[in-house]
């Protein structure tokens, strides 16, 4: 084992031991401020067993993950084509960019009050706000991906009279896909953060609702459980996107090598 792994493992172990000692043995940190391991485990048992904030854990997770997936899909299905178009056509870029420059500085979370005002506290408002949040990075990166394409390749394809659809499939998409995936990763992270925030502001179920209820009930154990689950879900979704990216990009290199 490397020195790094030994020190790292020892540190994590020491941190966990310190957590136990400070909360459970010496009570240096009062249980009202930060939960002990036992409190956290009890909160976890409560939310998986009898449920908390209108549902058991799996309900909250499914609700949040479903909403993020829906909003994210809507955003990339609209954002990526728009970015590709703006990258490809100078006129589209000139036409759309000014509007985009105005919308871009507004942080995703700032759309939440407007979405609530328009659509209330239901699912549609969440999807709308995720769409706004995830749209900008997917447009920008798809656009940058097209702009970074090899000019010679484009000109060669045009000279040979490549049909437009073939051009999109064989050159535009494969060439831009590394950047597109960078954009998707940023979009997904923005989606998840925005959804949790929107649920914290107001929701019936969902992980943000769990955090909000735990905050109001002054229930540190449940706050910690909520934070851990939010983090794990975000991490798992990013990892899933990474797997999709590797598959998509390996297919591209394979198809290019085969030609």
């Amino acid at each position: 084992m490397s020195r790094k792994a030994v020190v790292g493992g020892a540190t994590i172990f020491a941190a966990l031991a310190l957590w136990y000692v400070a909360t459970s043995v010496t009570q240096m940190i009062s249980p009202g401020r930060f939960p002990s391991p036992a409190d956290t485990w009890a909160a976890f048992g409560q939310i998986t067993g009898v449920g908390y904030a209108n549902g058991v854990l799996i309900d909250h997770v499914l609700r949040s993950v479903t909403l993020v997936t829906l909003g994210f899909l809507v955003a990339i299905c609209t954002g990526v084509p728009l970015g590709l178009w703006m990258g490809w056509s100078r006129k589209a870029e000139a036409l759309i960019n000014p509007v985009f420059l105005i919308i871009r500085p507004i942080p995703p979370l700032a759309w939440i009050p407007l979405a609530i005002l328009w659509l209330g506290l239901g699912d549609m408002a969440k999807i709308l706000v995720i769409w706004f949040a995830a749209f900008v990075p997917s447009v920008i990166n798809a656009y940058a991906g097209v702009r970074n394409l090899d000019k010679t390749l484009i000109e060669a394809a045009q000279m040979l009279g490549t049909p437009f659809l073939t051009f999109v499939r064989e050159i535009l998409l494969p060439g831009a896909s590394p950047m597109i995936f960078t954009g998707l990763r940023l979009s997904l992270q923005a989606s998840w953060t925005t959804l949790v925030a929107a649920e914290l502001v107001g929701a019936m179920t969902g992980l943000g609702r769990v955090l909000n209820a735990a905050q109001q009930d002054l229930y540190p154990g449940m706050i910690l459980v909520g934070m851990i689950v939010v983090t794990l879900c975000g991490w798992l979704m990013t990892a899933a996107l990474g797997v999709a990216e590797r598959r998509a990009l390996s297919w591209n290199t394979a198809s290019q090598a085969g030609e």
Partner: protein
Amino acid sequence: MRDMRIFDTNNTVVLGLIGFGGFLAVWTLLSLSGLIPSLFLPSPAAVVERFVYLLNHRFAGGTLVDHLGASMLRFAGGFGLAVLVGIPLGLLMGWFRLLDDIVTPLFDAVRFIAPIAWVPFAALWFGTGIGGPIMIIFAGAFPPCLINAYRGAKFADPRLIEAARMLGTPDRRMITEILLPSAVPSIIAGLRISAGLGWQSLVGAELIVASTGIGYMMVQGQGNVSTTTVMAGMIGIGIIGLVIDVVLRRVEEAILRRRGLSA
């Protein structure tokens, strides 16, 4: 080549004006025609009017200027703290391997937590006035400060380090005179990311826990079904975010230019 043929011009400015004008026209038409009730989609003119009105009339306990001021104060607190802790810690981790090995696993475990998920603990520990939001801004702004200072320190020329070590340079001077200068470009790039994330986290924090600030004003506007107030708030947030980025970009250019001359 495959563009629309309607506009027989390549002039970017003209096309930009057409795009922007079209956007405002559609917005105004939707609002004034009553297709979407103007209560929910006020015209651009109404939003601008409200923005100007709020500049010197109180809403939710203060004018727009008061709210933006409160927000910027919190931002300065959280961002300043992130810079003061993150950059020195990053540089130290770049020099002392043991510190690196100890802090990295802890940092990796914590940094995947979305800043917004800290809201309940921030409110519990530091209240909803100024401390809680500052902690959330810190959670957003800290990671890029630390990561970029660390990476920057690793960019330091190994020959320079070897030479300095041979001459018996003490650790403290090693960090301030060798690691820090070579980390500056990376640190500044980190500051811009950090400021963006911090500002965004601030807005989230104020929507949820604060009792003053631009986010709070927007929540109150939402509660009173005052769409113009919410949109005026979004404009204010966008402008300040843009100003922060422009200022940091200027600082970046100035520092890089000076280094370019001195090198």
